[in-house]
């Protein structure tokens, strides 16, 4: 006597959800407002509010979420009864390809100051960056394009630039690069992803 047939129907996947493309990194003074939802994908809306674009990168922007966990074990079972997050870090990294004093400062902790002297009689115009270890916190946002073609924004209200920066001066092998490591220093509940999904109805 035959039973019902055994079928194999795997779930379908959505190739449209496979995303790629560069991320755009903006930084600003902590507390700087984000653009309105309508303008999250508009570069000038960001810059007009005081956000600064870091410019070209060598290999795009990388976001790394790295929690470390602590297992809670009991003798009576081999698997943990709970896994607790003990620490968690969120980093935004990239290698800055545009060598400006602003970018050098950003990579070197954002603690330096840049004084600009205009050109005058007998005085060439110049910008002088004075280094400091008083690293200044900043806000950052990473913008990418989502599967709808709209902006998807990762907003981190407070980060600090702290990472080893090594720049090679080569004749022709590659451009001078400034690795940037931004470490989130705010509570995770202040960090948000915003995904634009549809145009306003009016």
């Amino acid at each position, binding site marked *: 006597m035959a039973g019902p047939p055994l079928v194999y129907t795997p779930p379908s996947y959505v190739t449209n959800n496979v995303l790629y493309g560069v991320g755009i990194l903006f*930084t*600003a*003074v*902590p*507390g700087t407002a*984000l653009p309105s939802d309508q303008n999250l994908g508009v570069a000038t809306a960001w810059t007009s509010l*005081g956000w*600064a674009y870091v410019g070209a990168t060598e290999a795009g922007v990388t976001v790394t979420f790295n929690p470390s966990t602590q297992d809670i074990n009991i003798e009576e079972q081999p698997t943990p009864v709970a896994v607790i997050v003990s620490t968690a870090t969120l980093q935004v990294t990239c290698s800055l390809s545009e060598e400006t004093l*602003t970018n050098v*400062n950003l990579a070197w902790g*954002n*603690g*330096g*100051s*840049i*004084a*600009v*002297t*205009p050109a*005058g009689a007998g*005085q060439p115009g110049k910008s*002088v960056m*004075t280094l*400091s270890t*008083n690293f*200044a*916190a*900043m*806000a950052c946002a990473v913008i990418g394009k989502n599967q709808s073609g709209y902006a998807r924004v990762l*907003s981190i*209200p*407070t980060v600090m630039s702290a990472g080893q920066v090594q720049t090679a001066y080569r004749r022709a092998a590659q451009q001078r690069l400034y690795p940037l490591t931004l470490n989130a220093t*705010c*509570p995770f*509940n*202040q*960090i*948000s992803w*915003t995904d634009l999904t549809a145009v306003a109805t009016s």
Partner: protein
Amino acid sequence: MTEPAPAAPAAKAAAAAPAPQQQAAPAAAPATGPLSEAEQRTLSGLMARQQAVAGAGEPVRMKVTGSHASLSYGGVTIGTEFTTVPASMVAALTEAAADAGVEITQES
């Protein structure tokens, strides 16, 4: 908490006057359950703003004087015209200016 019984229109007008503490509570029950997406975004924004200015006081206006045209520190640039500076950055900017040999003036 017990809700007051439905009131007549005249009684509602009277209720506009200062009421005892118990009646000052919102008529609607407080929302419960998880925050909506909009509420979460609003809360995140408010908390970020609060953290940015916590214990920092009011922003001040500063400008560069002397031979320099501008000074940048921590994402803030001060030019020769008065620029509003977050209070949390005033001390650091002042120190940075001193280190860089730049004269700055704070609006009093």
